[in-house]
Structure formats: C-alpha cells, structure tokens
C-alpha cells in the first residue's frame, strides 16, 4: 500500500517566504548614503533660507510692512524699503528675458534641427563657452560696447513709442538738436541687455536638450505625411518641447533676477519706483547688496539680508514654478 502525501499536510507546514523591500548589505549602505546626500541639498537650501530669515527678522519687525512699500534706501535717515529695488530687479530681468528668450529659442532650434552635423558640436561648445564667461566681462562689454548703441536705440524708442509709459524718459526732449545722452545710459534697459547675454546660454542649453529628446518616430511621421521641415518643427518639436521652453525660460529668469556684477557696473543707483526702463538710474536687489555690503554696519547688514531674503523667496518661487511646469509637460515621458 502506498501512501500518497496529501497536499494539505504539506501546505500546512510551508509558510510563504517573507519579502522585504529593505535593502541589505552594500545596497543598504549605498541607499543610505545616496539618501543623505540627496537630503543635504534640501538641508543646505533650507539652511540658506533659514539663515536669511533669521537675519532679516529684526529688520522686518522694525519696519514692518513699510519695508515693502517704501522706495528709499537711506539708512542714515532710518528710511529703508525695497519697493524701488524690487521694481528695478523685475524690470532688468524682464528686459533680459525679452532679448534672451527669442535668441535662446531660435538658437536651440537651429542647433537641434537645422545645423549641419559638422558644426553642431562647435555651436554647442560655443554656447557653453558663453555660459562660462565671467559676469564682470559681460559687465565691461555692456558698459563700453553696448551702452552707446543701447542709448541710441532708447532714444529711437522714446521718439517713436514715447506714448507707451515704459518708453518715456522724464525731463528730456527726444527731438532736441543735440540729444541729452546722459539721460539714456546706466538704465535698466542697458543693464538688461548685458544680463540677457548671461541668461541666454542657460535657457538655450535646457531647450536644446529637450528638443533633442523629441521622439524621432513622430518627427519622421510628420515628414512622411508631407510636412515641411518648419511644419514638422511647429507640429512636433515645439509642442513636445513646450515644457523645456518654459522651464528654460524660468531658469533664465531666476538667474536674471539675481545677476549682480554686470548690473553694478552699468546702472547708476536710483531709488525710485519707475516703469520708465529707458531712463538713467535704477537699482536691483543684488546690486544694492553688492554695492552696500562691503561697508555695511550690523543693522544695515540685517536690512540687506532682508532684501536678500525677499530675493531668495522670489527666485525660489520662480524656479519651483519652472520645475512644476517641466514635470507636468509631456517632454521625455510617455512617448514611443
């Protein structure tokens, strides 16, 4: 007689192997160290923010809401506010983006879609080189080479588009026999042009990378359906790269907001809220900090750091916005 082992009896003794997702051994070490390093970025960013907030607290408590509405920066008269410098920061950054965005977009499109393979790598290297040029060089370039021409362009803009508030220049007649060149230099417009050359390579690099990830299948499909190259670019590459375009622009904007040395070299500090970007005199948060930091006393330092804290928050918001846009876009995900 043979006994057949009953499956029930066997099964009763077998317990399922415990599955653990926790890594062991070398994996655990690697996971832990990678996690630590990743977290340290958060700690550092948070630390910068916390430090600035801690330093800014006395100033914010002392001046309260008027710190944001007052335009004058006169520590000797106990009048401190960042309305004017914030306005200047935004106008310099917007002028910079006005010039940098089309340049960056078209350069990226040319490199990824049109440039012959021979010169493609050279062009990429040149753009990277532009990003590597120190900002003081751009400042000198802007001061000595660009400002004379920018001032003439500003005069032309005022003469023909002076009815638009941002192109007005106070206290000067654009049709005078000899134009008053001193009113058109050292302006947000001149500084913005210099800054645009600094943010352009960064925006361009991001856009180019996204464009180069466009699925070749979709591009070929468009061409096969009879689209011209430009038709393919507008119907496939640009929609696919929308996230990259917006993200690169926002990253560039973040850098334009904080650009310092070139702005210090070019602008003539003036503390007034004005939309007139062509007119002499403006000030940005970072140029204010750079200009006053060296000789600041403790209380002034706190005021400067408060201004820096506000700038930190603005760039944080801008860059976070950029990250969200890039993540939500279709770029690089879900294509075949």
């Amino acid at each position: 007689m043979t006994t057949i082992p009953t499956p029930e009896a066997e099964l009763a003794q077998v317990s399922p192997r415990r599955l653990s997702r926790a890594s062991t051994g070398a994996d655990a070490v690697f996971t832990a160290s990678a996690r630590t390093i990743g977290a340290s970025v958060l700690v550092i960013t948070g630390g910068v923010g916390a430090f600035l907030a801690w330093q800014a607290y006395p100033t914010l408590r002392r001046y309260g809401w008027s710190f944001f509405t007052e335009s004058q920066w006169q520590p000797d008269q106990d009048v401190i506010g960042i309305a004017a410098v914030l306005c200047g920061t935004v106008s310099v950054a917007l002028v910079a983006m006005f010039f940098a965005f089309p340049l960056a977009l078209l350069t990226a499109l040319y490199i990824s879609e049109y440039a012959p393979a021979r010169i493609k790598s050279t062009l990429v290297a040149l753009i990277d080189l532009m990003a590597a040029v120190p900002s003081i060089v751009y400042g000198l370039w802007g001061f000595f080479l660009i400002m004379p021409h920018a001032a003439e362009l500003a005069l032309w803009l005022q003469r023909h588009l002076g009815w638009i508030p941002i192109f007005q220049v106070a206290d000067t007649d654009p049709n005078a026999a000899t134009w008053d060149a001193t009113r058109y230099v050292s302006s947000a417009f001149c500084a913005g042009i210099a800054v645009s050359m600094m943010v352009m390579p960064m925006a361009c690099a991001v856009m180019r990378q996204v464009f180069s990830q466009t699925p070749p299948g979709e591009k070929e499909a468009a061409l096969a359906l009879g689209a011209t190259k430009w038709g393919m670019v507008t119907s496939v590459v640009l929609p696919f790269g929308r996230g990259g375009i917006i993200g690169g622009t926002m990253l560039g904007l973040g850098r334009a907001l904080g650009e310092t040395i070139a702005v210090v070299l070019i602008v003539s500090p003036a503390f007034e809220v004005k939309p007139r970007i062509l007119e002499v005199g403006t000030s940005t948060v970072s140029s204010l900090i750079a200009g006053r930091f060296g000789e600041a006393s403790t209380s002034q330092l706190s005021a400067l750091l408060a201004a820096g804290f506000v700038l930190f928050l603005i760039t944080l918001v801008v860059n976070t916005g950029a990250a969200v846009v890039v993540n939500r876009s279709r770029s690089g995900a879900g294509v075949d």
Partner: protein
Amino acid sequence: MTRRTRIRALLSLLVAAACLIAPVGFAAASTVGPATPALRTTYAQIEGTGSTWSELIVQQWIADVDANGMKVVYTGGGSSKGRKDFAQGSTDFAISEIPYQGTDEQGNADTSNGRQFAYLPIVAGGTAFTYQLKIGGQQVKNLRLSGETIAKIFTNQITNWNDPAIAADNNGRAFPSLPITPVVRSDGSGTTAQFTLWMDKSYPSIWRPFYGKSGLTSYYPRQGRAIGQAGSDQVMNTIAGFAGNGTIGYVEYSYPLNKDYPVVKVLNKAGYYVEPTQYNTAVALTKAQINQDPNSPLYLTQILDNVYTNADPRAYPISSYSYMIIPTGSTDPRMTTAKRQTLADFMYYSLCAGQTKAGPYGYSPLPLNLVQAGFDQIAKLKTADPAVDLTSRDVKSCNNPTFDGKNLSKNKLAQIAPQPAACDKTGAGPCGYDTGTNQPSTDGQQPTDGTSQAPAADGTSPPTDTAPVVDSTTGEVVQAAPVDPAAPAADTGTTTTDTTGTTATQPQAAAADFPVPTELAAARPADTKTFSWVAALLLVALVLMPGVMATKLRRRPVRRGQ
C-alpha cells in the same frame, strides 16, 4: 631562491633605503636654506583694500616692489570698505582718506573694533574736477570755476553750462546751453568725504541745506540729474564715455591725467585759478595742520581748514593727504614677522623712492616731516615684533623729491613751485593752455627737479612764454565785463584753442580765440513726419510706376493693331 627573486629583493631594499635617506637629504637642504634668508629677508604676501583716490600710485608701488619679492595685493573698493575690512580683521592694511570717524554719518560705529593701528601718511594729492564739455565738436580743456560755482553745481543749484556764474568765472566766455550732469560716487568713498568736507567748511550755506545737516559724508546724497557710479575709475569712465558731454565729476588728479582729460582750474583765495599739479598741491598743504600728539589716536591725521583758505597764489584748495592704516598690535592675529617685514619694506619704498613717482602720476610727494613721522609709525611694527629688521632704513637715505639736501625743514617742491600765469587771475584770461597735462600753468620757467621723468615730459615743452589775453573781437585785453555772446559771432569756427601739443610754439594770441556756442533749434517732429510721408509716397511711386507704365505700353500696340 631564484635569481629573479634575489634581484627583486635587492631592488626593494634599495627603494626602502632611498625612502629613508630622502627626508634626511631634504632636511639637510632645508638647513642650508635659511642661512641665506637670514641675510636677505623673508616676505609674505600682504593684502589690503580701501581708497580708490590713491589706488593708481599704490598699484604702481606694488608693481615696483614686486621685483624685490614683496607680494602686495591691493583691491580698492572705497575708503569706507577699507576701514571696515581692516576693523573686521580681514586685511593686513587699509588705505583711507579720512580716519576712523568713531560714529559715522549714518549713526553706526566706525571704529577699528579694538584692533590696534596707526595712521601713516602715504601720498598727497588734489581732488580734481574733470569734465567733458564740447563746443562744436571741440572739447573745452581750460574751464575754470570758483569754489562756490562748483558747490552750486554739485548741489543742483547751477544746472546749465550757460549759467552766468560759469561765464563770469571764465571771464565772460560763454558756454553752450547744455544741462550739467554731475557724476558722483555711489559707494562709500574718501574722495566724497574730502570733497564734502571742503564744501562743508567753505560753503556751508550751500552744502548744509542740500545735505540736510552739517559735516562730511562718505556717501554722496545723489539727487536730480546726478549719476552715481561705484569707484573712481567708473566715474572717470562715465565722464570720458560717449554720453559724457555735459558731465562733471570729482576724482583724484591722476585719473584725468591718465585718461588725458581736462580738469577744472579752481579759484583759490589769492584770486588765481589753479590746477592740482604736484606743485600746487604741495604749496597748499604747507598750511595743513597735522596732529602732532603721538599719544592721540588721531596722531598724524590732517586738519585742512587752512589749506582751503591758503592765500598763496599757487595753492590748490582741495588738497589732502591719503593715509594707510597699519596694524600695530603685537598679538594681531593676522600678522606674522614676515608680513610685518613686507609691510615695513613696502612702506619704506613708498615713502622714499616711491615718492619720486607721485608727481608724474598726478599725486604730490610727502614733505619731510611727514616722512619722518611715517618712519616712526613703521617703527611701531618693530615694537610689536622685535624680529622685524629695520636697520639701514632711515630718512637720510631717502630719495624724496621734496627734500632739500641743505635744509631738511623746507619743502623743496613748494619752494620751486612756479607762480601761476597772469591769465589765470580773476578778471583776466582765460588761458589757452590745456589742463590735465601735469604741467602747472605759469609765465615763468617750468620747474626742473628729480621728479620730471614724467610720462608727460616726453619732449612736449610746456607753455612758457607770456600768454597775452585778448578779446576775440576787439583784440584788446579783456576786462571783467562779460562779452556779449552775440557780438563775436563773426569768429565762429575760425580758430580753436585746443591745438594739442603745439600750444608752446603757436603764437599765444590765438590761444584766447574760442569758438562761440550757438544753440540750434530742436528738430521738430513735424518736419520729420512730412519728409517721411513724401519718402513713403516716392517709394510707392517707384514700385508702382514701372507696372503702370508697362500696362499702358502694352495697350498701345493693341490699339494700333485694331
């Protein structure tokens, strides 16, 4: 044991031996090393920040001593920054126009934070007013202004170059109707401090209402049309830049000299308009009161009230000394023997041979008494650290152009300074010579001394003969009465003053013949618009005409054929 392993063992033995011996060898070499530095001196790199007023000469000195192995780094940034960096202990020395103020004008502490220091005068100079003003494309190079006019320009009371006060200072010479744009420093600056101190002492009724209180400030209260720029070089660049027409700013005389730009001749108490050359500055500073109390924290600092009112016709009113702040504490955390030695030898060079270069570079050498006092201050470095070697470094071996070999108590430079030219007097002139050439304007001989290996003295002989001053219309010597700007219209564009370089050989009568500014009516947009329309119509016609003509011509044969 095989042969190969034996060789390998031998090799490893050799390597081990070499490892053992090598450090001994290096040690032997290093014991030989210090024997030589005991005779020479060891130097270490020293760093400083501060004044841009005196930066040009300091950078030259640094380049000079570099060959002797002294590495000095100086980065400017303004006097306020220099004092602050020194107080925070982040530099080895500072250079400042004004001493620590105790409490600065903004009500904040301006002290050395307890760091022990001494003031050491390094160079004298004049705060110059440089400008760009063009009449008919020709740059004006001989503008002269009284102190009151200057104060009013920088406080926005005189806002146009055709102001009668400016014409009166230039003996009736009219300037074009052009807005004045003052260029001021936007950073904390010793130049601003010296300039505002002069305004506060000399023209309190003009300066104080503008500033809102009395006293000097390192931060110019920029208002109205004024443009602010950081650093003396940026001020100079803005004035010399393409948009500089109509601008005027204040910098040390060396900056316009370096850029070949004119400076304003400033009226002194004796009624002469003078340029801040090394002679005029030296003469003015003979009246400077120096704090002579070695126990005072302000030992050697300057009181310039009598300089501003110096009645010598050669004196330039806004002259001052620049100071180095050196750390004298024996426990100073930044200082070492090598650094103190570098600082001492750098200063020894600067106070002696380096002063020879002051004149040619647009500064003025220090007089003997200040050099002597400077040596006493350097000696404090040895007091702090006995290892510092100061032997064979004393005043007697000093090659300083202000020293008179026979009488050490006299300032040779101030003695040989030439009397100003007659055309520089109030009510005469103005002289036709260019300013900003580092040559004092005079009717007599140019002084000759050791300092004349100037970059300026490159064979261009200075204007020496008498400069007759004639009215451009009548040919007579002009009176103080202002010339009617409409009268000499016939002379417009005939001759100009600024024939650079040839002034000496040219007959001086031509020197006083200035172009007369004329004011053009503004180009009204109405004209431009009319012409734009006409141009547009012409363009349209140009495009359409061939087509229209062609149709007409085509129709004709058809008609013929019918």
